[in-house]
C-alpha cells in the first residue's frame, strides 16, 4: 500500500507545476486552468491527510474547496468574457488600462 506521503508528494508536484503555469502563461483562460490545477493539488493533499488521520474532516474541506472553486470559475469566466468583449483579446498583457 502506497502511504499518504506519496500522495502528498504528488500534490506538491502538481501544485508547483500549476504555479509555474500561472506565472508563465499569457492566455487568461489557461492561467485559470492552472489555478484549477493548484486547487486540485491541494484537494489531493487534503484527502491524503484525511486518509492519514483516519477521519473525514479533510474530505469535507476538499468538498468545500470544490464548491468554492466552481463558484470562482463561474465568476472568473464571466469576467473573462466581459474583458474579451471590451478588448477583443484573452491575453493578460492586453488588459493594461490601469498601467501607469
Amino acid at each position: 500500500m502506497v502511504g499518504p506521503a506519496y500522495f502528498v508528494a504528488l500534490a506538491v508536484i502538481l501544485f508547483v507545476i500549476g504555479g509555474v503555469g500561472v506565472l508563465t502563461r499569457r492566455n487568461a483562460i489557461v492561467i485559470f486552468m492552472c489555478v484549477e490545477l493548484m486547487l486540485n493539488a491541494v484537494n489531493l493533499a487534503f484527502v491524503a491527510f484525511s486518509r492519514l488521520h483516519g477521519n473525514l474532516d479533510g474530505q469535507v474541506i476538499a468538498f468545500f474547496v470544490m464548491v468554492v472553486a466552481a463558484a470562482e470559475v463561474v465568476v472568473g469566466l464571466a469576467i473573462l468574457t466581459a474583458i474579451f468583449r471590451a478588448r477583443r483579446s484573452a491575453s493578460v498583457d492586453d488588459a493594461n488600462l490601469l498601467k501607469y
Partner: protein
Amino acid sequence: MKHSTVLALGQAAETENLAFWVLAVMSVAAALGMVLARRAVHCAVLLAVIMLSLAALYAELGAPFLAFVQIIVYTGAVLMLFLFVLMIVGVSSRDSLVETIRGQRLAAGLVGIGLLVLLALVIGHAAIGPAASSTAANSAANLPGIATLIFTTYVFPFEVTSALLITAALGAMVLAHRERTRPKPTQRELARLRVASGRPAPLPGPGVYALHDAVDMPALLPDGTPSDLSVSPVILQRELGPGESHARPPTPPAPAGELEAGRSDNTEQPEGARW
C-alpha cells in the same frame, strides 16, 4: 482459506501500488503538457486527464464520494464551462512567445524550483506516517460520515456556501450581461434594408438538380453560368484537400478556376486561422 485471503490482500495492495504510480505519472505528465501546450483547447483536454486521474486517486484513498464529485463537478461542469468559454473567446488565440517582462519565464522557472524545494523539504521533514487503519474514512461509512459532518460540525460553512453560490450566479449574470447600445431593428426597418440592399430574395441554393446535388456545387443560372452566390463561403473555407474534392466536376470552367484560387488561398492560411 486464510492463506488465500492474505494472498488476495497482497495482490490488492500490489494493484493499488500500480494504480498509484500509473496515475501519478499520467497526471504529472498531463500537468507538464498543460503548462507547455500552446493551444488553449489542448490545455483543457489535458486538464480533463488530470482531473480524471485525481478522481481515481481519491477513490484509491478511500474517498468514493469525492471521487464522484470530482468527476461530476470538475470534469462534468467546470471543465465544460471552460470549453464553452474557450469556444466563445479564444480558440484561435495562441500564447504569444513575446515576454512582456524580460526574463519572466526564467524567473518563473526559478520560483517554481524554489517552491518545489521548499515544499519538498517541509514534506520530507514532516515524517508522514502510514495511513490510519481506523474505520471512519473507509468506504462503507464514507458517505454517511461526510453527510453527518456537513450537517453537524460544518453546518454554518455549508449554509454560507449557499450564499456564495447565489452571489456567484448573480455576479456571472451581471458580468456576462450585454447592454443593447442601439434599439433593436423593427421588422419594418429590416424589410426596408432588405429591399434597399438590392437583393430582396434569398440567395440561390447550391447544387444542380438531377446531376450534382451537393452543397459545394455551384448552381447554374438560366444562361448556364454557375452562380458563386449559391455556395456558402464557409464551405469554401473548409474545403478539403485536393485529393478529396472529387465532388466537383470539371464542367464549369470559369468559376472552377476562381474557386480553385480561393481554395489554394485557404489552404495556405495558418492552421490557427481555420479555427
